[in-house]
């Protein structure tokens, strides 16, 4: 077996109030894909940021290509051949693809004048090596998320990386794009690159990786060979208990119809969408990323303006609302992107949670801190949020824990209809089932719930009824025994296989 190209031993990193990494040892061999898994806040991203020169460890040693090294800054890491593909993409949208690939290391002459020819030629070579369909001069802001990710990965070719770290790379990719990514990763693997792969998706981990290292509360629980283990064992290492492998479907009696949508259309996004949802019902929306599901619910919530369509709220026809009106009616939308929507990054988790409902937390105009604190504690426990306290700025929370505060913020409003768009994206397996349980509980309390998900087991597991969507159209509705994976796949692929109507 090849010697490790990179070995970390005894790495410790503390932040005020948390030991993010506690004497972590970890190694990567050339040509392997090494999975790093653990709950939200376990320390995965922190460990990789140490490797990428973004954080300096308090203690511990890094051995790279047989030599002890110090990684002082991101550029040093990249020059050594260690490349981090961030959890949140790290690109400048206004700059070109070529400029982004070489960001911070542009070729210049002695006077600092850019050698644009060389920059473009080198970038083209890197893109060719990966089989990208876009060119070095394209502006990054005009590319899709998947293509932007390819731009980051192209850096591995440009800097002839020996170690490439992927931090939850598939969170916003479609299935086709994910397959492309895996092909790229296997290509890197063949070149002898050592790969670290962070993900919460067990199927991906078992499809792609050779070894798995599990982190819990900043400590390594163990490293296992993927072939010799299974998802149950890995999950047990992650959360310290066995996870019940079934979904908890709400056991509710359906009440009055809360929302009915008729013929909702928005040019270029979706066509003629009609459906309804009742009290106590969980309605699932299944479809691939890009099918138009998010656009539909954003329109219901007034974020987008529909071209056509009518809306009935609790039996009465109403005009399409603005977001403020939607909130006042009793709708809540938990959007899919936590970064842009929803959180004030400098504020603490408690203030973020109560922000949209300040009126109900104030006595006349003075905030009732005790009541706020109670809400905070309630959701911290219900969603097992890892935070040092109500005032820790959410910007310093791990990605998954930020996501949980977005959820908490909308849940505590006590809405009549709650729309959850990819509620478990980037959330660890343990908390995932906590969120599923919470969804069931909400429905049992009589709320109408709409859940959008690209994960079939999830959408089938939590919903009473599922709508399948493809290319902006509803292509199937399934209930009871008809709710099967085959039926959903059939409905979606059948539609996609048809030649486009226009």
């Amino acid at each position, binding site marked *: 077996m090849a010697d490790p190209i990179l070995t970390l031993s005894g790495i410790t990193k503390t932040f005020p109030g948390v030991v993010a990494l506690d004497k972590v040892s970890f190694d990567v061999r050339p040509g392997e894909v090494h999975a790093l898994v653990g709950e939200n806040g376990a320390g995965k991203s922190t460990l990789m940021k140490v490797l*990428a*020169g*973004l954080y300096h460890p308090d203690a511990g040693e890094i051995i790279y290509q047989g030599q002890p090294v110090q990684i002082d*800054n*991101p*550029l*040093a890491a*990249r020059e050594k051949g260690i490349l*981090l593909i*961030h959890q949140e993409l*790290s*690109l*400048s*949208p*206004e*700059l070109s693809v070529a*400029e982004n690939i070489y*960001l*911070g*290391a*542009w070729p*210049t002459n002695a*006077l*600092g*004048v*850019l050698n*644009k020819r060389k920059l473009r030629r080198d970038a083209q070579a890197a893109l060719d090596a990966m089989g990208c*369909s876009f060119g070095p001069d394209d502006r990054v*802001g*005009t*590319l*899709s998320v*998947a*293509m932007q990710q390819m731009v980051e990965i192209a850096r591995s070719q440009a800097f002839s990386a020996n170690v490439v770290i992927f931090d939850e790379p598939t969170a916003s990719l*479609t299935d*086709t*794009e994910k397959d492309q990514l895996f092909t790229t990763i296997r290509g890197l693997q063949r070149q002898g690159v050592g790969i670290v792969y962070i993900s919460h998706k067990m199927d991906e981990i078992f499809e792609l990786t050779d070894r798995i290292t599990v982190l819990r509360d900043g400590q390594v629980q163990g490293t296992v060979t993927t072939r010799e283990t299974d998802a149950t064992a890995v999950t047990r290492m992650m959360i310290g208990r066995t996870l019940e492998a079934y979904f908890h479907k709400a056991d509710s009696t359906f009440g009055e119809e809360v929302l009915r949508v008729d013929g909702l259309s928005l040019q270029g996004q979706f066509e003629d969408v009609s459906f309804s949802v009742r009290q106590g019902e969980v309605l699932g929306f299944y479809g*691939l990323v*890009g*099918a138009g599901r998010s656009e539909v619910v954003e329109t219901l919530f007034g974020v987008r303006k529909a071209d056509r369509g009518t809306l009935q709220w609790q039996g009465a026809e109403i005009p399409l609302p603005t977001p403020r009106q939607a909130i006042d009616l009793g709708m809540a939308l938990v959007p899919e992107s936590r970064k842009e929507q929803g959180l004030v990054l400098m504020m603490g988790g408690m203030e973020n949670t109560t922000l949209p409902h300040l009126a109900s937390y104030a006595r006349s105009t003075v905030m009732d801190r005790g009541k706020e604190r109670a809400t905070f504690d309630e959701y911290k426990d219900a969603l097992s949020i890892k935070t040092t306290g109500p005032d820790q700025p959410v910007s310093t929370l791990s990605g998954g824990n930020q996501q949980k505060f977005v959820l908490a913020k909308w849940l505590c409003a006590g809405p009549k209809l709650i729309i959850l768009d990819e509620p478990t994206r980037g959330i660890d397996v343990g908390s995932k089932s906590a969120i599923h349980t919470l969804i069931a509980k909400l429905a049992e309390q009589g709320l109408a719930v709409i859940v959008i998900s690209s994960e079939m087991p999830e959408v089938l597991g939590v919903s009473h009824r599922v709508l399948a969507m*493809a*290319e902006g159209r509803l292509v199937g509705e399934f209930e009871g025994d008809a709710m099967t994976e085959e039926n959903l796949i059939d409905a979606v692929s059948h539609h*996609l296989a048809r030649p*486009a109507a226009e």
Partner: protein
Amino acid sequence: MSATNSITKAGGHSSVTRLLMRNHIWVFLALTIVVFSTASPYFLTINNLGNVLTQAAFIGILAIGMTLVMIDGEIDLSVGAILALASALAIGLQDHIGIWPAVFVGFLSGAALGFLNGTLVALSGMHSFIVTLGGLIGIRGLVFIYTGEDALMVGDFSYTEYPEIYLGPISLTAMIFIALALFFQWILSSTRHGRETYAIGDNIDAAHDAGINIKRHKIINFTLCGALAAIAGILLSMRLGTAEPNAGKVWELWTIIAVVLGGTRLQGGYGSMWMTIGGVLTLAVLRNGLRLLNTPNYVELMVMGTVLVLALLIDKLLSRQEA
């Protein structure tokens, strides 16, 4: 497959429309020129256009520095005060150390104050709005102390003859403005420092992660901005032959207006000297045209204010379409 195709590239506009959308200010400028040409027979004369260019040069040179700082995502409110100080020093010191040494000291004062602004912003983490607002007040105070609250007069009148150098209808002042603008456009588009200016304003985290030295970078741009403001001040002192303590008052606002009018983004990451030239010329043409039509001063201000809001509105609408 079409599901992925539909999201591969945002927007379906041709490169020509995109070019127009991103350079709307030149369309706007052309419109104002057409309007004033039909309204006043004097407007479209070589002489008058030469004048417009000279009048535009002072705000223009300030705007060059402001553009650099604004693409970085910062702002410099002290440029008007730096201009006044440089012009006061350039004139006030002449009797003691001679013309060119005085000019040089004036120039250095601007560069040094810019450096100070940049260092404070980069090292303290304070917002540049606050730092340079302090600069605006403090430096203006310095000017009043130095001039003793009176205008300084030039002793050697050969000093005021340099701006009388003309190439055809184009004054030396205007030439310097154009040359500086072209030079800094080249810096922005072709040097590492220039492109990194965009990278920093656009996504400071990405720039930091890529190992770009953000602090040094910002200090350089603030220094350039201060130095350019000093150049504008020196040129102004040559043109007027006096240095008033109130010179350049509220010019920082006109400068910001010109830059923003051009289309450079206040949040940073986007803009160019071409846009800024467009914005500066549009402001100058408006002012000149309105004066030719004998518009009262307060009406002029109202028109300019309206134009600013309109231009930004157009910009907003266009960029929304592009997205």
